[in-house]
């Protein structure tokens, strides 16, 4: 009886540990934004400040000559560029007038400037060999997003040139990269105000659309939307061919298997590190754990040896029972 009480006590202790964990008794590690904390000083700081004075916040003021007094006004949301975000972006070393007409220096801005054609990404990035913008453009033109081009969609729909920063995947910042990249998709696909600018659909609900996915929140925090919604391209760091929703990955074993497709997408950056301490697709283990993709070859072997050994013992035993 004493032993039984001891057994139950141990069980209760373990259960209480789990309950304490569930109740937040243990501190969870939090992902901190460690990227690019150094203060960047732009050579165009002073020049750009002329623009940020009004476009850097939600309200601005100017001297109205006709009224003879200073007027305060609200800045359109689309025209606001947070200075801090700009100076953390990939284009932080640019002057505003590198891409926008120098005539914007005049206020009020001349009306005809609005009619000017805007630069596209490819106007500067065409022919580059680092990011393969030409291949990205080709993929984009085959993607489901391209049909929205006439509705006003473009590269800028996902990659705001004023704030976008490329996040190179490493095993240290993967969670941040996933969150950052998914936020790009969610910017429209979970915000109806933006979504309705491009479609006539009456509602969006990605949570209910993904209800079939077991442990939905775990999946969404640990893989990017594009893992399932793009066609894998071995030659591009990030695939841009967004497939129609009917072609999205839905078979669990495409990721949950030894030849997990995650190794060609999310974990491409270190996919050479196929095995780590005997684990298949070991690099995934640095960030998460994928059932079926992270088997351990030593444990596989050990289990086969134990199982085989038992079968042999049983067969020998049967032999002696028959030939007693």
């Amino acid at each position, binding site marked *: 009886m004493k032993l039984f009480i001891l057994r139950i006590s141990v*069980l209760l202790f373990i259960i209480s540990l*789990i309950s304490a964990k569930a109740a937040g008794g243990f501190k*969870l590690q939090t992902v901190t934004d460690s990227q690019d904390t150094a203060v960047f000083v732009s050579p165009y700081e002073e020049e750009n400040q002329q623009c940020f004075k009004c476009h850097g916040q939600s309200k601005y003021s100017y001297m109205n000559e006709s009224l003879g007094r200073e007027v305060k006004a609200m800045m359109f949301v689309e025209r606001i560029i947070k200075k801090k975000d700009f100076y953390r972006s990939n284009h932080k070393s640019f002057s505003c007038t590198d891409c926008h007409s120098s005539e914007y220096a005049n206020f009020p801005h001349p009306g005809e400037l609005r009619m000017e054609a805007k630069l596209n990404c490819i106007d500067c990035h065409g022919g580059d060999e680092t990011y393969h913008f030409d291949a990205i453009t080709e993929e984009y033109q085959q993607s489901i997003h391209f049909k929205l081009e006439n509705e006003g969609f473009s590269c800028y729909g996902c990659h705001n040139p004023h704030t976008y920063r490329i996040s190179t995947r490493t095993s240290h910042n993967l969670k941040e990269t996933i969150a950052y990249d998914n936020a790009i998709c969610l910017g429209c696909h979970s915000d109806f105000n933006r979504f309705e600018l491009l479609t006539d659909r009456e509602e969006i609900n990605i949570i209910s659309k993904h209800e079939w996915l077991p442990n939905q*929140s775990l999946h969404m925090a640990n893989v990017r939307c594009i893992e399932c919604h793009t066609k894998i391209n071995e030659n591009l760091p990030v695939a841009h061919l967004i497939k129609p929703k009917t072609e999205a990955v839905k078979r*669990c*074993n495409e990721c949950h298997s030894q030849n997990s497709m995650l190794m060609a997408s999310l974990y491409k950056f270190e996919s050479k590190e196929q095995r780590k301490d005997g684990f298949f697709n070991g690099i995934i283990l640095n960030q*998460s754990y994928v059932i079926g993709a992270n088997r351990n070859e030593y444990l596989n072997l050990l289990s086969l040896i134990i*199982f085989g050994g038992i079968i042999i013992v049983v067969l020998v035993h049967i032999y002696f*029972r028959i030939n007693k």
Partner: protein
Amino acid sequence: MYLYPKWIRLWHVLNAILFIILIITGLSMQYTGEKDYVLVVGFEDAVRWHNTSAIILTVNYIIFVAGNLITRNGRYYNLKRENFFADLFKQLRYYSWGMFHGEKHPFPITMERKFNPLQKVSYVLAMYVALPLVIISGIGLLLPEIVIKGFMGISGMLLTDLLHITMGFFLSVFMLIHIYTCTLGKRPGSLFRGIITGYHATEDHYDLED
């Protein structure tokens, strides 16, 4: 001898069916293969069946523990320190040598001793160590948000899953040996009949003098 009351038999048969489903679906998840090849039932179905069976198994386990606390069945699982290893050795010797040389069973089944020493140890390990661990780690995998994120730099999910599959493996091995040793009655089917009807025939032991 009426050795297995109705509740034990019902618990046992449900436990056995769930064990088989859980082993098959567990293997299906762990060893899903190439893009279009899946072991036995496929990942998606395996997850659904595994989760459902596991929840029923957990409830069934609670019934088992409660039943052992309420009824006198729990006494069969009390391990005694005296002659612990000597008795284990005696039983092992009987299985590996004695039973082939006309020796009597060293621990014949009585109403007070349902299990031989080897059975008792393996049942206690399976039911009070491996099964609770497999259930607790399984709850962790079912509700990943309650799992500790990491322990000494190793993913908490990995540790939880390793514990789960290791215990699952030992329970599968236990089941294999359990089924084989149940053929060691007077005739290979005698002990199986006992757990179905509830009655254990006292002479139902593998004994060369019979």
